[in-house]
């Protein structure tokens, strides 16, 4: 009973003041890296993520190319200063695994068969982390992918769900993830069809808990999707407003 009160207070608020189905504040910027074909910077609570997409390009090494479709190279990396104790900079087991499952999520949405024999490189760098970085990375990478103009069925949107102190909640922070009974379910969906493209589970949950996690997770993902949509459209909206005033200004100067 003591544990339950520690993670959710009597007003239904969590330790950082959020309610159970509330996502941390998200900020997305599109097109931040001029050298990349598409890029994105995302802040999700304390998480800070840079994503860059290069491609489609000629596949190197050649023997990895597939003559029927493009291949996706997804690289998830954490900066050595992104965690409280310094992380060794070489890719670890965890990073290799996340890169693999996230790359496979993209294979589900990109029209790969339009670019046979090529590679699409996705580089994601985590600068600061506080739980839920793999879904933040996936969310940022899919915005960068859209910014690169790569044809996709849909935009991937991810969100963490889980359980801490006996309560099902969305978007757990590091403190909640470290709870003794914590369950962590990172998931990513395609918002238009609710198809799940990434789902992992760490911890023990009953069938009912798991089902409520999935339905809460889908709702949370849709909230994140609105932010992605807004960011992508914003890129083209700002010059539109500026240039509306341009002809009048020009006349005034004459």
């Amino acid at each position, binding site marked *: 009973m003591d544990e339950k009160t520690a993670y959710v207070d009597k007003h239904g608020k969590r330790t950082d003041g959020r309610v159970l189905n509330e996502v941390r504040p998200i900020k997305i910027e599109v097109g931040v890296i001029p050298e990349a074909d598409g890029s994105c910077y995302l802040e999700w609570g304390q998480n800070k993520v840079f994503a860059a997409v290069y491609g489609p390009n000629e596949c190197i090494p050649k023997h990895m190319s597939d003559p029927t479709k493009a291949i996706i190279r997804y690289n998830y990396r954490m900066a050595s200063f992104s965690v409280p104790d310094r992380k060794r900079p070489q890719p670890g087991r965890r990073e290799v695994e996340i890169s693999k499952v996230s790359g496979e999520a993209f294979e589900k949405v990109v*029209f790969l068969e339009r670019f046979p024999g090529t590679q699409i490189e996705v580089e994601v760098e985590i600068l600061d982390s506080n739980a839920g970085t793999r879904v933040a990375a996936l969310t940022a990478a899919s915005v960068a992918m*859209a910014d690169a103009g790569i*044809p996709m069925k849909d935009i991937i949107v991810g969100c963490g769900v889980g359980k801490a102190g006996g309560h099902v909640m969305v978007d757990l922070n590091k403190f909640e993830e470290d709870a003794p009974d914590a369950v962590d379910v990172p998931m990513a969906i*395609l*918002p238009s*069809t609710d198809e799940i493209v990434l789902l992992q589970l760490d911890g023990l949950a009953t069938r009912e808990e798991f089902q409520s996690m999935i339905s809460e997770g889908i709702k949370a993902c849709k909230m994140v999707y609105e932010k992605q949509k807004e960011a992508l459209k914003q890129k083209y909206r700002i010059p539109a407003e500026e240039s509306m005033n341009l002809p009048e200004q020009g006349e005034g100067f004459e």
Partner: protein
Amino acid sequence: MSKRIVIPGEQVSEERKRLGSHVYLREGKICSDCVGLYNEESNVASVVPLEGKYIPLVGDTIIGIVESENYSGYHVDVNAVYPSFISKKDIREILKPKSVISARVDDVQENMEIKVSGPRVFAGGELFTVSPVRIPRVIGRDGSMLNVLREGTGASILVGRNGRVWAKGGNLDLLRRSLEKIESEAHLDNLTDRMTAFLGLAKKNN
């Protein structure tokens, strides 16, 4: 014209329309597959992409840079995803690496290699790069924008579909600024009118 910005996976139209480019069918609904502009009034459901690489089509005029020479021909960098090649059998002139040429896309082969023909070597001039998806705006309807640019800057201009613009003579600095303006405002209406005003104004200032 009522155009709106769509993102991948967004449903573009409720009605049944003929499918154009950059759309796909999902459960009978027409959806976009890229970030682009959708024209509501058109009777073809088609999205004009705002980002992307050059996808070669037969008949395109492109501007390439000769990369290397081998026994049978030349490899040319045409700013596309796939490599391109000119066979020595098809041409008489001798090309040199790093020379800038204009050519026509003859064939896109099954392995996606691009065959180009009819190379013409440029002497002098300057090369500008524009995003390939915005080249249609640089040309304009029936070349209207190109005429405005030629008139405004006094340069002789050749536009390649692969996102390269070659120009010689005239005010090339003005042309560079004009191309930057077109590129940043490619998603807006009445661009030709605005460019006419921009070039007219700039001319007076000079």
